[in-house]
């Protein structure tokens, strides 16, 4: 298996970049080989299999295919492999194989895509098998050395013991021989009850360098002779750049070249970012803003509102006869909600560094989808995949935005016009805000019927608005996007509707705008949770029932269990004086989640979110400490968007341009978060996203209890909560 590692392409990003300051890679020749001492040593260390490298000093390197953007799955995936490997956890470090290596080795590491809270749940089995296979090969190698049956040997804590004689060998001592052992064809994974590392809240493996400034993010890449580019793309999607006058900036400090970027943009390449940005701002540009130049928030709102009663809707969920049941109900309730465009606003703006020659293209970038970035590099360079590679860095936030590779394609397009010279493209925050892949904009209209006992007998939910799927085929939208029904589906791990309602109809009138939507942490579960969980509260209040009791009647199993758990822990219904509770639950990304928020609202309308109790049943909890951090983090992300996060569209462009106009929660607004991680076993649910969806509706329902105001349109900052 070692022969695969003889190509120079496997450059483990982490160690590579740890030494990757200017001095550290001063010896770089432009032959796509970065001779850092550590990386050289790693290449000589034997790979037991694709997942596991063990050095003679017993240190263990676990290869991680998925991206790390703060969600912690780098550590969780390492725990999964180490559990089966039976290695000493204190000797573990990690590295990212490159997408080019994955391509060359027939996707031995599987899917690199990191989104949809799938990092662990979709790869846990083969990652554990990778660790187990390596352990079996190490034990076999030791048995061969001792000339004893393998059944007499066992591995624990990086040591193999021949049980009858007590002889021992360390993993490092037999790793080279283990690599030559035929890989096992049959692997039995440990029973979950025997796990010692999975389920333990161990600390992250990637913290230290984040505290000293040593960690090299994509934006920090420094290569010898590197230039820096600043770009401007047409602020209105669908528009084009008619012309620019490079002569006006050619003599400005540091400027090397001004280059077109496709038909829609222009970049200045200079010696430093500041010089590139300064020249870009001085560059005369003449735009054709195209057919969308008159689109506004109001025109989009009107178009979506038209979909609420339109006949062209696709039915996602149908049980019984909703309209008949509503018509015959003792009481009917209607409500219309809306959910705005929101921006990812990752802390690290989009960036990528590319080096293109006649026959090679190499990219360094933060990406949630290394293989898509590789494809983007191939497309933009015009070179075959085999001539390209992508070195993934740790991401300064992703949240779905970096699942798209537009900035990678741009960087390669720019660098191709500077052959043989590495060029780092950095987006300004303003460019980043103007060219997002926004949280889809939608509206929803409910009609529901209650019988004389307050039972929900029928409900119709009409969704009108964007389809993310449609954004992949602009101008040719699909008729159906089942993703729109996340959390509302009839069945399935990605979000099944948890309430038992005898007559239910949920349909979608697709209304796509020129602003492209994208995956945004929580995706479609976010608005669907706000819609359904707010409306459930409306129904409860309209029929004089407690919102918890009303929900419990229609819930069973895991959904009811998580809701009960938060209600009990939060002392639901008995908040401290002057404070009010609100609850919500949903199922999505394979997990069952609930929240109980405790808020107060001052007479002047100031909202304080004091505390949120959250519960998640994610099946198996690989690292409960990191899960708690993901829950609290998802709340900050979701509540920032709920309170502040709406984008305004004027003349076809996004108005909000930076954190002064697109505010987010800071520490002074951060609620206390109490987490109940309650894995019931038998399934693998996601962690990074599901809980985000219950934060906003729980808070909105608490606001109603505090003020009597039902907020149906977001962001909240547009609604006054002042006492009348």
């Amino acid at each position, binding site marked *: 298996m070692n022969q695969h590692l003889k190509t120079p392409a496997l450059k483990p990003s982490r160690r590579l970049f740890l030494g990757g*300051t*200017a001095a550290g890679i001063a010896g770089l020749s432009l032959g796509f080989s970065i001779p850092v001492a550590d990386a050289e040593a790693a290449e000589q260390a034997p790979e037991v299999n694709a997942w596991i490298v063990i050095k003679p000093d017993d240190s263990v390197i676990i290869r991680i295919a998925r991206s790390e*953007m*703060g*969600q*912690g799955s780098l550590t969780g995936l390492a725990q999964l492999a180490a559990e089966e490997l039976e290695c000493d956890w204190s000797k573990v470090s990690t590295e990212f194989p490159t997408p080019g290596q994955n391509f060359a080795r027939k996707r031995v590491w599987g899917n690199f895509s990191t989104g949809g809270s799938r990092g662990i749940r979709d790869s846990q089995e083969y990652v554990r098998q990778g660790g187990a296979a390596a352990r079996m090969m190490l034990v076999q190698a030791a048995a061969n050395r001792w000339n004893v049956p393998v059944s007499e040997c066992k591995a624990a804590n990086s040591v193999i013991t021949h049980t009858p004689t007590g002889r021992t060998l360390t993993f490092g001592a037999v790793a080279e021989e283990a690599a030559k052992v035929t890989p096992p064809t049959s692997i039995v994974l440990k029973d979950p009850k025997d796990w010692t590392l999975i389920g333990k809240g161990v*600390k*992250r493996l*990637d*913290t*230290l360098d*984040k*505290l*000293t*400034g*040593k*960690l*090299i*993010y994509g*934006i*920090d890449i*420094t290569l010898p002779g590197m230039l*820096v580019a600043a770009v401007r793309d047409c602020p209105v999607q669908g528009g084009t750049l008619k012309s620019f006058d490079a002569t006006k900036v050619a003599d400005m*400090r540091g400027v090397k070249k001004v280059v077109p970027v496709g038909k829609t943009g222009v970049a200045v390449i200079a*010696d*430093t*970012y*500041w010089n590139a940005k*300064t020249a870009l701002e001085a560059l005369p540009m003449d735009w054709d803003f195209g057919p969308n130049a008159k689109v506004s928030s109001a025109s989009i709102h009107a178009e979506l509102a038209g979909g609420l009663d339109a006949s062209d809707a696709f039915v996602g969920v149908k049980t019984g006869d909703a309209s008949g049941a509503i018509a015959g109900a003792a009481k009917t309730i209607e409500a219309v909600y809306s959910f705005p465009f929101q921006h990812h*606003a*990752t*802390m*690290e*703006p989009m960036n990528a560094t590319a080096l293109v020659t006649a026959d090679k293209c190499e990219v360094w970038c933060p990406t949630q989808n290394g293989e898509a970035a590789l494809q983007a590099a191939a497309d933009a360079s015009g070179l075959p995949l085999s001539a390209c590679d992508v070195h993934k860095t*740790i*991401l*300064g*936030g*992703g949240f779905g935005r970096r699942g798209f590779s537009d900035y990678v394609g741009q960087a390669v397009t720019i660098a191709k016009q500077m052959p043989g010279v590495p060029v780092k493209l950095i987006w*300004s*925050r303003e460019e980043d805000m103007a060219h997002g892949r926004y949280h889809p904009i939608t509206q929803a209209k409910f009609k529901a019927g209650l019988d004389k006992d307050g039972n929900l007998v029928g409900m119709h939910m009409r969704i009108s608005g964007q389809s993310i799927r449609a954004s992949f085929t602009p101008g040719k939208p699909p008729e159906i996007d089942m993703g729109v029904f996340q959390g509302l589906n009839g069945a399935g791990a990605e979000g099944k509707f948890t309430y038992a309602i005898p007559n239910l109809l949920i349909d979608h009138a697709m209304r796509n705008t020129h602003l492209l939507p994208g995956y945004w942490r929580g995706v479609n579960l976010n608005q669907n949770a706000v819609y359904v969980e707010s409306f459930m509260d409306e129904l409860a209040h309209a029929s004089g029932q407690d919102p918890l009791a009303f929900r419990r009647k229609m819930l069973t199993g895991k959904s009811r269990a998580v809701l009960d758990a938060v209600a009990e822990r939060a002392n639901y219904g008995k908040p401290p004086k002057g404070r009010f509770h609100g609850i919500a639950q949903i199922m999505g990304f394979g997990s069952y989640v609930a929240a109980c928020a405790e808020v107060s609202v001052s007479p002047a309308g100031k909202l304080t979110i004091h505390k949120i109790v959250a519960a998640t049943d994610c099946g198996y909890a690989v690292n409960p*400490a990191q899960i708690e*951090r993901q829950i*609290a*983090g*998802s*709340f*900050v*992300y979701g509540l920032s968007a709920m309170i502040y996060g709406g984008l305004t569209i004027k003349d076809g462009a996004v108005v909000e341009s*930076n*954190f*002064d106009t697109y505010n*987010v*929660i*800071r*520490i*002074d607004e*951060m609620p*206390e*978060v109490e987490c109940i991680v309650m894995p019931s076993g038998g399934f693998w649910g996601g962690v990074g996203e599901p809980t985000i969806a219950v934060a906003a509706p729980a808070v909105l329902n608490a606001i109603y209890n505090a003020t009597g105001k039902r907020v149906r349109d977001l962001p909240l900052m547009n609604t006054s909560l002042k006492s009348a």
Partner: protein
Amino acid sequence: MIKFRVNGVDREVDVDPATPLLWVLRDSLHLTGTKFGCGIGQCGACTVHIDGEATRSCQMTAADLAGKSVTTIEGLADRGQLNKVQVAWLEGDVPQCGYCQSGMIMAVSALLKSNPKPSDEDIDATLTNICRCGTYNQIRAAIHAAANA
């Protein structure tokens, strides 16, 4: 040529005097631990110490730097010994993506110098840096841990 001190070493840079300190550090001195987040003094990812005071380096130009002493995240540890704030961050497993944490740590280490035992209210009033991953509760706990270290 603009002369100033960075992490205890005298440096000279030849840049446009309007260049923000942030980009002097990152592009001229290759001290990339100081992060670019917004460029308008909002997010705090670029926080450094200038003559001991927490400052957003995107809001200070090279022209203003002459004769000043700048400490960046790379210079916070003392001869390889982590600063007590960094220790508290490590013990508390604070960072998620980590991108904002250089600025957070620099802001907090300056806060603890002027206010060794900050209350929650002091922290709320002083620490205006943005973290998009939402590590705020870990940060608050780590500040108190560092204050009591």
